[in-house]
């Protein structure tokens, strides 16, 4: 649940409870005041009757109106305590039951006791109460609605720096080297969040870069000893007195230097791609590039008696030329190396997909892991970096690359 909804839910519930309680309280207070006023008016009338009786020794004549009714009833009761109560009575004129406030008291005129009942209708009081309640309800509803809207707008505005920082963190990608930026805010909590995020991303970036620099420097440093080995081997083989056995050993050393050199170059290439050192892009005719690569590998393809089937539509891509070359090179090279003798390769290029499939035996790697570094099947003589490099390049251009093994076919799909 979003913080705003959660907050609004709590806030609304609390507001409604508060308004309900205050509304009820208000109702009772107002009705108490109004009843008190009625009581007062009834008491005044009673006083008037009492005064009249005292002065004239007679009962005040009944002048019953819609707003006041007075009844006299002879009684033997002598209790003089005035008693207020509510009564309901059907009033013919109004054709409805009306609530009255009534005051009962006993007065003595000429030695006779009379029960005096004064009634005043509560209709107006009720009407007034209803009106007050209605107005209160309207105000409360309006108030809640207003606060709800203000909160929504205000909270959204207040949380904006937070939302911005959050989106930056979500977008953050070490290898893409996008720096985190924050919006200035005067809210302390958000400011400390921003500071923490900035300092953390800064530290992470720094560590990442120093690691990358290390890899790059280490790779470069390795080139020199490799160059020495290569040069010394080139001189050693000039010696005319080398035995066949030694020649075999020298050839192995050449092989090892060659392998180490290629490994080093591949690692360096991976680091450089990660470091976005191939950012310049140009228009690449992928179909032409594929044709060129097939020609380049033609010796190898012929030697293994592999048949190639192509269905290549013209396709132009915005890409770094060097990287495009590496992707196609690695994919075709793999399709040849992991093929069977007399096998086949199928290459199809459409507007949004490149598919390269080749016959081959099942490999011992989890298909999910083929794009990881140094993942290779036991029988492979490669470095185990070719597909990792392809993946890295595809990531840079947001291409999707998938591998599957179906019906003895290794299938690589590149979706642009």
């Amino acid at each position, binding site marked *: 649940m979003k913080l705003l909804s959660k907050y609004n839910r709590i806030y609304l519930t609390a507001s409604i409870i508060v308004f309900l309680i205050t509304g009820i309280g208000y109702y009772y207070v107002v009705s108490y005041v109004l009843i008190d006023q009625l009581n007062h008016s009834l008491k005044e009338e009673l006083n008037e009757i009492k005064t009249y009786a005292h002065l004239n020794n007679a009962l005040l004549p009944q002048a019953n109106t819609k707003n006041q009714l007075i009844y006299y009833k002879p009684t033997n009761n002598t209790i003089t305590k005035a008693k207020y109560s509510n009564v309901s009575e059907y009033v013919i004129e109004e054709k409805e039951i009306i609530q009255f406030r009534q005051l009962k008291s006993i007065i003595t005129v000429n030695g006779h006791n009379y029960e005096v009942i004064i009634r005043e209708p509560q209709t107006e009081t009720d009407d007034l109460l209803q009106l007050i309640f209605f107005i209160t309800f309207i105000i409360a509803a309006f108030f809640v609605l207003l606060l709800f809207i203000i909160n929504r707008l205000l909270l959204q505005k207040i949380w904006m720096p937070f939302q911005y920082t959050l989106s930056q963190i979500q977008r953050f990608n070490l290898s893409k080297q996008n720096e985190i930026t924050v919006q200035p805010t005067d809210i302390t909590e958000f400011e400390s969040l921003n500071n923490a995020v900035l300092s953390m991303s800064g530290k992470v970036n720094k560590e990442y870069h120093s690691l990358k620099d290390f890899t790059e420097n280490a790779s470069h440093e390795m080139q*020199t000893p490799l160059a020495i080995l290569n*040069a010394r081997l080139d001189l050693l*083989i000039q010696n005319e007195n080398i035995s066949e056995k030694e020649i075999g050993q020298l*050839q192995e050393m*050449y092989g090892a*230097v060659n392998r180490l*050199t290629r490994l080093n170059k591949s690692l360096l290439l991976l680091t450089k791609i990660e470091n976005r050192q191939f950012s310049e892009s140009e228009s690449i005719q992928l179909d032409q590039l594929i044709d060129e690569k097939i020609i380049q590998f033609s*010796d*190898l393809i012929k*030697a293994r008696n592999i048949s190639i089937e192509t269905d290549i539509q013209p396709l132009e891509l915005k890409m770094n030329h060097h990287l495009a070359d590496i992707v196609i090179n690695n994919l075709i090279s793999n399709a040849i190396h992991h093929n069977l003798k007399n096998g086949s390769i199928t290459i199809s290029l459409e507007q949004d997909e490149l598919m390269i499939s080749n016959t081959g035996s099942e490999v011992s790697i989890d298909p999910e892991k083929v794009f990881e570094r140094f993942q290779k099947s036991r029988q492979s003589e490669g470095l185990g970096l070719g597909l990792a490099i392809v993946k890295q390049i595809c990531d840079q251009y947001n291409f999707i690359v998938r591998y599957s093994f179906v019906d003895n076919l290794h299938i690589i799909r590149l979706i642009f």
Partner: protein
Amino acid sequence: MKILIVEDEKAIRESIVIYLTDERYLCEIAIDYLSALDKIELYEYDCILLDITLPDGSGLSLLKELKSTNRLDGVLIISARNAIDDRVEGLNLGADDYLTKPFHLSELSARVAAIIRRKQFKGNKDVQFNEINIDTFAKTVSINKTPIELTRREYDLILFFVSNKNRVVSKNAIAEHLWGDEMDAVDNFDFIYTHIKNLRKKLTDVGCKDYIHSIYGMGYKFSNQ
């Protein structure tokens, strides 16, 4: 032919000197930026082998220095950095070629020969080895004035051999020279044999002596013996 080798790594420097001296080049060495600067101010060279990363400066500034005085010395950059930017910058500054470490001495020698040909003879100098004549401008080969039809790889191969005559050239070096270092050299060993067989046949068919000697398990030697 005078060559200056600017390289701070002793073992590499020495190897280059030994290999190129055997090719009858006159080799001088400079082990750092300052001594290299001294040398190029005093003498002219047919080719300068320039390491970019020197202990006391960049080979690229040495190159700038050289080009600012309109010198015609050929320059071959040898660098441990194979960054494309370095390559492009080096070539833009007027270097003739760029070679990334590690390299084969035979490759280095072939490149030096090509630079000298281009510089001194504007590419028109034919390469002559006994009865073999290679026109590097037209990329044609003739034996005793009889032109022979060679494929691109066969042409590359014979020029590479002649540039490294009397030397054992390893299969690795040949593979890298013909197919580039992007491809695994081992993949191409079998094709070297095929190409050499074809080349040898084309040469001997027109009466050329068979100069290509196979060194068992190692490579080939192109020589008169």
